[in-house]
Structures are given as structure tokens and as C-alpha cells.
């Protein structure tokens, strides 16, 4: 059984079919890229499977469970983490607090316990801080833990958003253009991070425009054009597929 699957997933906006009957399968432990020209429906597909948009037709299953139309915060709780194309962090919270925010729903803690600062609550908080610090270290932001996220550079905020998505240890991680508008050094760092995740056995679905990144790290590539899946396969095969070449460069 596949970890994650869509069947006939369709989303229309005012008569425009942004995602058109897409079947997509991701097995546990895979590193898959979703590519396609601008406007081909990649981000819309991400939003449909993470509860931000309700699909018009089709099914989404995760760990054998139908999650079609389930609210975004529930999807996240089920173990699907995601990042956003535009950098998304809580600017007024520190880097560390940004990460802690992502862990919290996975901790049981009662309001009364919170008010009296029960020892259990303190222990949970200490463990969360420890995990957050080690994740910040792993993306090279250890020294900026206390800095408000809004004061970090664009690339640093992207790394922070990435680390935050990892905080609850999701079973499936959806990354929306992690390398977009990031300088070359940072791209190398991001690639290394994603590879490291893959080595740890994590399942990653990546939307990316940067072909170097896609070809370099993915095991399998799925190509969307005008909302439809036009090709699927290993990177070197997809790269030479005439339909893909046509979608990107025209005839």
C-alpha cells in the first residue's frame, strides 16, 4: 500500500481546470519531485492535498486513510508536513519559538497544568527546546536561535521554515520550491538537507523549478502541464521525454 495517493484529483477555478484528474502515488521512503511550467497546477495540487483547498473531484489517501477535504490543521496532525512557496515564518517569534510552535499540538498539556506550571509541562517544554535547538543546529541556524525570525535573511527564513516543518517529525514532507530565490550556496545546503532526510528514510514530495536540484536529488519525477500529468519516471528519462521538452520550451 502506498503511503500517499491521489486518484482523479481535480480542482477548478471559475471554469479553469487547475488540476485535472491527477493520479499520483508516493511510496514510503521515496524522494519524488513534481515539476511543470508556471501555472501547471503544482501548488494548487499541494493545497488540495493539505486541506487548504477542497478538491472538486477525486480522492486523497494517506496511510490508507481517506483524507479528502480534511481541514489543514488536521492533515498536519495526521503527519503531513509542508512548507510554502513564499517564505512563511512567524516574524515576531524567535527562530526557536517558531520551531516550538510547530511541535505543540503533539504534546498533551492541560490548561490547569499550564497555569500552575506543572513539572510535566516543564519537562515537555525542556524536551521540545532541546529538539528545536538540534534542528536549528542541523540547518546552520543554531547561533540565531533567539533572533526574531523577521530579522533573518530570506534564505535563512527558508531554512527556518524547513526546520519548522520537520519539528513534529512528519511521515510525509511536502516542500514547495525550497530552492526558489535562494543563493547558490544556500541551494547546496538545502539539497544536502533534503538528501539527509531521504537517507533517514523520510518520504519527501518536492515541487521545484530548479532543474539542477530536481535532477540531482529526486528518485522519480512527475511532470504536470495544464493541470494534467504528462510524464512520470526517473529524472534522466523524464528529461528526454519529448512531451516534457515541448511543455517547457514549446514546439
Amino acid at each position, binding site marked *: 500500500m502506498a503511503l500517499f495517493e491521489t486518484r482523479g484529483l481535480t480542482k477548478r477555478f471559475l471554469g479553469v481546470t487547475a488540476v485535472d484528474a491527477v493520479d499520483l502515488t508516493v511510496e514510503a521512503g521515496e524522494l519524488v519531485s513534481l515539476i511543470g511550467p508556471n501555472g501547471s497546477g503544482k501548488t494548487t495540487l499541494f493545497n488540495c492535498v493539505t*486541506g487548504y483547498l477542497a478538491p472538486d473531484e477525486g480522492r486523497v489517501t494517506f496511510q490508507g486513510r481517506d483524507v479528502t477535504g480534511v481541514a489543514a490543521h488536521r492533515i498536519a496532525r495526521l503527519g503531513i508536513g509542508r512548507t510554502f512557496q513564499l517564505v512563511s515564518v512567524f516574524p515576531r517569534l524567535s527562530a526557536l519559538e517558531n520551531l516550538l*510552535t510547530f511541535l505543540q*499540538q*503533539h504534546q498533551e498539556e492541560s490548561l490547569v497544568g499550564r497555569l500552575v506550571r506543572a513539572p510535566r509541562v516543564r519537562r515537555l517544554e525542556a524536551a521540545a527546546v532541546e529538539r528545536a535547538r538540534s534542528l536549528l543546529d542541523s540547518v546552520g541556524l543554531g547561533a540565531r536561535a533567539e533572533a526574531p525570525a523577521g530579522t533573518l535573511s530570506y534564505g535563512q527564513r527558508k531554512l527556518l521554515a524547513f526546520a519548522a516543518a520537520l519539528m513534529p517529525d512528519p511521515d510525509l514532507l511536502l516542500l514547495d520550491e525550497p530552492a526558489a530565490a535562494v543563493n547558490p550556496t544556500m541551494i547546496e545546503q538545502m539539497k544536502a538537507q533534503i538528501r539527509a532526510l531521504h537517507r533517514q528514510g523520510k518520504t519527501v514530495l518536492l515541487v521545484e523549478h530548479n532543474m539542477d536540484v530536481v535532477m540531482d536529488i529526486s528518485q522519480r519525477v512527475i511532470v504536470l502541464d495544464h493541470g494534467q500529468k504528462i510524464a512520470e519516471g526517473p529524472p534522466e528519462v523524464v528529461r528526454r521525454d519529448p512531451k516534457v521538452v515541448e511543455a517547457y520550451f514549446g514546439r
Partner: protein
Amino acid sequence: MRATRWVLGSAALVAVPWIAAAVVPGQQRYVLHVLIFTVLYGALALSYDLVVGHVGSLSLAHPAFFGLGAYTLALLATEARWPFAFALPAGIALAAVVALAVGVPMFRLTEHSFAMGTLGFAIATQVVATNWVDFTHGPLCVTGIPKPQVGALRIATLPAFYWMGLGALALVALLYRGLTTFRLGRAFHAVRDNETLAAAASIDPLRYRMLAFVIGGGVAGGIGALYVSYVGVLCPGELTVSLSVNLLVMVFLGGVGSLRGVLVGAAAFTALPEILRMAPTWRMVIYGLLLLVIVIRAPDGLEGLMRRASSRRRRPASSGA
């Protein structure tokens, strides 16, 4: 050092009635009266800041919750002869339950529509209080609300009311601290700053908005009940929109989302007009000008001014060391 300051500060607050008697012997009743309003307004402003400052929903419904608690206590204590110890929780509970019922449809509205919707609810509540004469006595007001009595403890004197208000403020401040720090506080701020990202962090925005709205409403109801048991009279005029405006001024004047800021704002708001009584003709003009200056010079409120001042004081010291 911090702990000592804390203990001394609390002791000074508790000792205020004696201090007032010693410092301004002729005026101590008046000073205490202003201080009772200050502590009650402080607690009310904190409950309002939970909603406006921490989850970032501009609710204008607060006078309605204040009024619900006030009318519940007033009517139960006069008509049904309920003791204070039952009427107060009833006021808190009714305000919280109504906040729950009103919040569910209201939070389907976003930003401006939410402000409009809650304003509509506040106005409707005041209209009902004014016109349902058989039940609320309308403009004839509920009079003769008895002084609170719990067992042998009777709260009747000004110092007693001051201590009651101070105790209520301390409880509300504790609740405020508990709700706005660590896990819960982070969830509130996540929802306020970026709802989309909050959902990706498994945080249900509606749930946290409701939590702040219902607790804020319940606390406002409780303060309303304490307020009428002090004043002894309740008229529909207490529930007007101007209460929302006052609360907004306190919260924004003091510093949105900050315990110290909101309390300073509430104190400045209630004490300033009284201090300015020394210049009766120009009182409201000076008051308005002061507000303008603060808004222009310190858009983040008095809290921002205080924070900048203390960091300026600290910087030369640390660079010398």
C-alpha cells in the same frame, strides 16, 4: 532582587488604603474610589487584550459580556435574592456561554466584518437592556444592588472594595500570564500572525480564537458583576459602545499584548482625567492632546516607551563593564 521588588510592590498595592489615609487624609475616599475603578478597568482591559492583542481579532462585543455579567448579578441579587457567592459565578458563566454561542457564527466573518458583527451584537444587547423594561427595568435602572457578602465576610467599605478589586485583578493577571505564555501563548500568536502557517503547524485557528473570546467574555462578565456590586446601580448606559472605545484606548495606549503595558494603559486612562480636574476647563482638551502625542510619539504604546527607556539605561552600563 527581582523577587524583593515584587514583594515590596505587592505589599505597597495592598497597603494603598492606609497610604492614602496618611498622605491625603481629606481625599482618601475619593482616591480609593478612583483606584477601585482603576483596578476593575485594568482587569477588564486585560480580558479584552486576550482577544484583541493575542489572537488579533478586533472584537467590539466586550461591553455586551460586561453587561451580561452585570445584569445577571444585579437581577439575581435583587429580584431572586441570590447570595453573591452564587450570583457572581452565574454572571461569569452566562457571559462565557453567550460568548461561545455568539463566537461560532462571528468567527466565520473575517477582519472588518468580524468587528462589524460584534459591534452589532453589542448594540443589540444594549437595546434589549434598554427596552425590555419588565425584565431589566430599562432606563429606570436596577437599584439597591446589595453589597457582596460571603459567609461572615461583608464587603461594604471602600478599602474592602479596593482589596476585592485588587484580588480580582491579580487573578485575571495570573490567568492572562498563563494563557499568553509557552504553548498556549505561542498558539495564540501563531494564529494572530499567520493563520495559514498556524494550520500547517496543526493549530486550529478557530479553536484558539474561540478560547480567547470565551475566556475574555467570561472574565468581562465577572468584572461587570463586581462593578455593579460596588456601584449598587445598573443602567443600560453602562453597556454603550463607548466602553469598547475606552478599552481600545487603554489597550493601545498601554501596549497591545503586554501585561504591564495594558495595566499602565488602564491606570493612565482612569487616573489622567481625574488628575486633570485641576484644570477643569481645559481638562478634556489636554487629555485629547496627550493621547494624540502618545499615539504619534509611541505607536507601540507606553510599554514601548518604557522598554526603550530601560534599554537606554542599561546600554551605557553594560558598555562600561
